[in-house]
């Protein structure tokens, strides 16, 4: 958790685990808003769920207004945020605090493809036992064929997954069977896979381009962009698009499978510096920042 979050009011992008680290009794604030959050009283559940979910995602999962939840959390902490200026007066990156907003999950009004082969992954028992389900889900995603649909069963709506899988080109549909029983289908939209073409770079139709902010709690001023699942020139375009909106004082770390040679001269042209870390076996990290 960043020092900023400890010092100031809770923001929508703070992880639930970070909020609870400030005061465990805040669990009751969550529970007051939705019984759904009672699971957070269980330490094992908290260990798995709370660090995966931001306050905003938690509010959405529970179907409560994020502003109300934030106000109650900050009141319980005795922190009262300063009145915000009118929306239009603030820079886009400042609207949710200093950290850029995380990638919005791709909303898709369409139902999932019904005739496509379905791969079932049920993580309900894992979650109840406090086991981390992420690797299991990602393994299934990694093995998914282009025309297959992943049907995930979970005990809550896995909002954090939406952004993660959106980066890999998936859209989703959620269905609540009960408070602790959810179905979510993930699939690659037809337009992208059928055309076999590169989607428009860095817009809502290209979720793979969306940068994720603050993926690593130890690096609060770093925006991470994983381009490993993208075909050239998407990594180039997405990185440049992310740099266009990079807040001052932030660095962008591109996670790639190779050194992005075509990007390097463009960065120099646009006034960015970079450092390349090739020490990892399976990825290359390119840290990019505005040259002073």
């Amino acid at each position: 958790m960043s020092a900023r979050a400890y010092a100031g009011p809770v923001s929508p992008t703070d992880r639930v685990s970070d909020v609870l680290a400030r005061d465990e009794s805040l669990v009751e604030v969550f529970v007051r808003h939705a019984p759904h959050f009672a699971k957070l009283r269980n330490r094992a559940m908290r260990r798995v769920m709370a660090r995966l979910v931001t306050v905003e995602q938690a509010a959405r999962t529970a179907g409560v207004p994020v502003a109300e939840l934030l106000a109650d959390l900050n009141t319980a902490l005795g922190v009262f945020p300063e009145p915000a200026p009118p929306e239009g007066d603030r820079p886009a990156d400042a609207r949710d605090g200093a950290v850029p907003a995380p990638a919005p999950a791709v909303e898709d009004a369409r139902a999932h493809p019904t005739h496509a082969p379905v791969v079932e992954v049920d993580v309900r028992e894992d979650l109840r036992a406090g086991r981390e389900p992420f690797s299991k889900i990602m393994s299934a995603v990694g093995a998914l064929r282009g025309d297959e649909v992943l049907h995930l069963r979970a005990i809550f709506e896995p909002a954090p997954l939406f952004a993660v899988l959106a980066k890999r080109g998936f859209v989703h549909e959620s269905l609540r069977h009960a408070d602790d029983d959810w179905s979510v289908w993930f699939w690659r939209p037809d337009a992208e896979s059928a055309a076999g073409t590169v989607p428009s770079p860095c817009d809502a139709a290209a979720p793979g381009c969306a940068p994720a902010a603050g993926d690593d709690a130890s690096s609060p001023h770093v925006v991470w962009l994983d381009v490993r699942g993208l075909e050239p020139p998407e990594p180039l375009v997405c990185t440049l698009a992310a740099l266009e909106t990079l807040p001052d004082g932030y660095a962008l770390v591109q996670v790639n499978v190779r050194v992005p040679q075509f990007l390097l001269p463009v960065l120099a042209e646009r006034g960015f510096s970079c450092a390349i870390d090739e020490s990892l076996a399976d990825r290359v990290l390119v840290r990019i920042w505005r040259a002073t």
Partner: protein
Amino acid sequence: MTTAVPPGPASAPVAGRAAPGGLPASPAVGAIGLAAEHFAAAMLYLLAGSVALVWIAPELAAGAYPSPHVAGVTHLFTLGWLTTTIFGALHQLLPVALGASPRSSRVGHAAFWTFAPGVGAFAAGVATSSVMLHHVGIALVGTGVVLAVGNIAATLPRARARDVTWAAIALAIAFLASTLVLGIILLHNLHTGFIAGARVRVLATHLHVALVGWALIMIVGVSHRLLPMFLLSHGATTRWTPRAIALLAAGVVALGVGLASRTAVVAWIGVALLEGGVGCFLWQARAFHRARVRRKLDVGMRFAGCALGFLAASALLGPFVLAVGLAHPRLATAYVAIGLLGGIVLYVTGFFYKIVPLLAWTARYRGRMGKGPVPTVAEMFSARMAHIQLALMALGVALLGGGIAAGSAHVVRCGAVLYLAGVSFFTVQIWRIARGGRN
């Protein structure tokens, strides 16, 4: 993972400088122009070769592979299309594959302006048996090859890693130099007849050193980098590429020695090694395909897949060609036609569809990237037209191979016309791409 990144913006070096052991090299802006001039010339030679294919159809059907016309047209494909494309592509690929830019872009230009015109003169000289064109052509081609090989060879020591791609490029340029020497011997023989009855064996060695040693080994080495990039199949096993390269290189040498020394056992060992090398390459390509993230293949990768099929077909014919020898010249002609026109040319065409639009797109939209909407690379050309082209060329190769085997000039000519139609589509596509796409 995150700790590997420096904790904050610090005095890190600026990217884009070639520095052994430091930051990798980046393709220079001018390198796109250098690649573009190579690609433009290569397209002209492909078109010329395809037109000439219709013209020499009767000779192909007769299996007259040693004829001057067939030899001249073959060089339009091997030198004009393949070698020119590879030279141009290396100016973009070396930084990606080896982390080192070609030693000198000036030498690269000089190599182009000697090699590219030289190919035309040489092919015309061979086809028309013109001594003057022979000499002018081989002088220019030889100079261009020496310059290009020297430029690439001077780049190799500066590579950041000496991996399998590095080894493939090193081997390939060595075989290219050998091809040139064998070519000069054959050319001199045209005027003096000094190798007499060994001509066909030297010709076979020249052909295999060129097509397998130079073109195929380069393709295998470069594909090792490009196939996972284009298929998004990172993490696939890669152990078959080094085996393929080792077997192909050993196979070419053994075949050449076997043919030159008239030692059948050695020649057969060479063929076995070549078959194994092709098999390993096909298996490697299969591994990349199976591990791909994006299941839908685009047209460039479909070209490559189709080409691999023809390559396999040609490889299957190889042992029969060696077994029957000169008794069945049509079989030998079909073997080369399928391997060259179907295997190697189609494979390079597929990569053309991946690389050229990307370079053109980068050059055109470099300043706008990330700042607003720009067309996608896929919008630079018509995928539908490319698929039609693939069908035409693939059917053309099938008819060419079948027609040659059957000795039917009509079928061969039909195949050549289809092939030409496909290449014409391709020319239109590349013209569109060069102009910035269809929109």
